[in-house]
């Protein structure tokens, strides 16, 4: 999996939809919780997962689609890696 490429894709999505250029600054660490730091509101997780499945050519397991599993960059990348995500 192209980890750096997918990370940038997620940052671009955050910028394009929520933070308009500020996303990289808000994510001070890939380990921080996005809910706690106000980076993503709970309802936007559905939009994020739809985006990831469509753009990373992956079908994330239904059982793992919880906010906790996608609450932070490293958590998202880990789940994508486990599911065989790819770019392009």
């Amino acid at each position: 999996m192209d980890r750096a490429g997918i990370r940038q894709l997620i940052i671009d999505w955050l910028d394009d939809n929520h933070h308009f250029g500020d996303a990289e600054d808000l994510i001070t660490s890939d380990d921080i919780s996005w809910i706690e730091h106000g980076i993503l509101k709970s309802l936007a997780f559905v939009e994020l997962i739809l985006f990831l499945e469509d753009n990373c050519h992956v079908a994330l397991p239904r059982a793992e689609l919880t906010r906790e599993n996608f609450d932070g960059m490293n958590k998202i990348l880990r789940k994508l890696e486990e599911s065989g995500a790819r770019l392009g």
Partner: protein
Amino acid sequence: MSIHQVELWFFLPVMLVLYWLGAGRRLWQNGVLLVGGWLFYWTWNPTLLWVIVAATVLDYAIGRFIGTEGRPESHRKAALALSVIYNLGQLCWFKYIGWFTGSFNDLMTALGFEVSAPILKIALPLGISYFTFGKLAYAIEVYYRRSPVCESLLNFATWVAFFPQLVAGPIVRPRQMIPQIEVGRRPTAKMFAGGAQAFLLGFILKAYVADWLGPNIVDPIMSAPTDYSAAMHWLAVVGYGLQIFGDFAGYSLMAIGLGRLFGVELPENFNFPFLSKSMMEFWRRWHITLNTWLFDYLYGPLTLSRGWWRGRLDLGFLVVFALCGLWHGAAWGFMLWGVLHGVALVVERRWGEYYKTLCRKDRVWVKRRKTRVYAFVAWALAQSWFIVTLIPFRIHDVGNIAGYVQGMFVSAGSAVPPGLESLRELQHFAVILLFLVVYHLTQTRLGGWAWGRFQAAPAPIRGVAYGLVLVYLFIYVPLSAGTFVYANF
């Protein structure tokens, strides 16, 4: 018996003494909680105790079945379906059967058929909407292997029948409570102080705020609106918003406080919803445990499914909030209320999409969204929508709803509700409003600082302050206070 009535002051001390006599001993403590919970349930309606007992045993057995390693997937799925059908079937039978048959009769009459199905009058089991959703969450979580199976029937039954949350929630997920009661609990001073403080605050919101606003402002106006002026119509709706906040947030805090007295931390259910600047934010602050339940088990699975529903976010809002309305009660008014909230979320989402296009073109729009003017307008719109949509929530008959809305603009009545009749009542009203304002000011920087200073003050000072509040409450609050609005849901 309910958790704000006089009977509790006899029940609670006995429970606490028995419970803490076995400090650190799980079997004893859970046994006391279970017997107490079922006794609490029995006092509400002795003939319906079987409802919670049967549902508990069935879901415990289903959980064990689903969670067993090596079980064929088709068997697990069938067991999950059984749990869903039983739980929702039970809810429909007790809560909606009368409404279904009544609506069917109305429809047949409207179509010109002479059909009249008998309408059953069935007593609603206490807290059925709350423990049903809790148990459904358990079955789903175990099915997806997100939560471990609860091996002990005693622990499982204790979670379902934990009496502080029986009347009106919060909806407690298995992973929020079961791990806490799988070990013995030992008392700490902090636990008791935190519990007493939450209970007292909840009691003020319920017995002082909600139970005064109902009979003195809201009920008189809403039961005979044509007697009152347009301004009084508005006052009653705003008063109702404050009343149900006091009622439900108050109950939730009392439940959290009681939970702490037994060493159990229940989830937060309200987070200052009157500070919300959008309806999405409102639903992250109001009845949080229901909102997150609907999001996790309905909205998310629906809109992320592989089929037709995938990505239909707006339709998902409408459906989920229509069901959210129905969850509150079997009436078209509740459903209308839910749909109106769904519509608000759709409009907000669409507005958000449009605003994104502006932000992409020019970053000045990002800055504008952070200004005080934008925040104030957004806050006013969200709060106004919440207040106005309470009309169908409170008045279920569609014809009366239209009449009430008309009265908000044109009404020749001149009556005055009891809450505004005398100087003493006016003072009472003013103190309630002041309390609510101060309560919300604790969320500002200055208010938070002041509250933090109070919390850090020596115990005797805090004790005197709490004592004065209690004396005031004993003087002014009738201990025969009414039931909880949300207990009927």
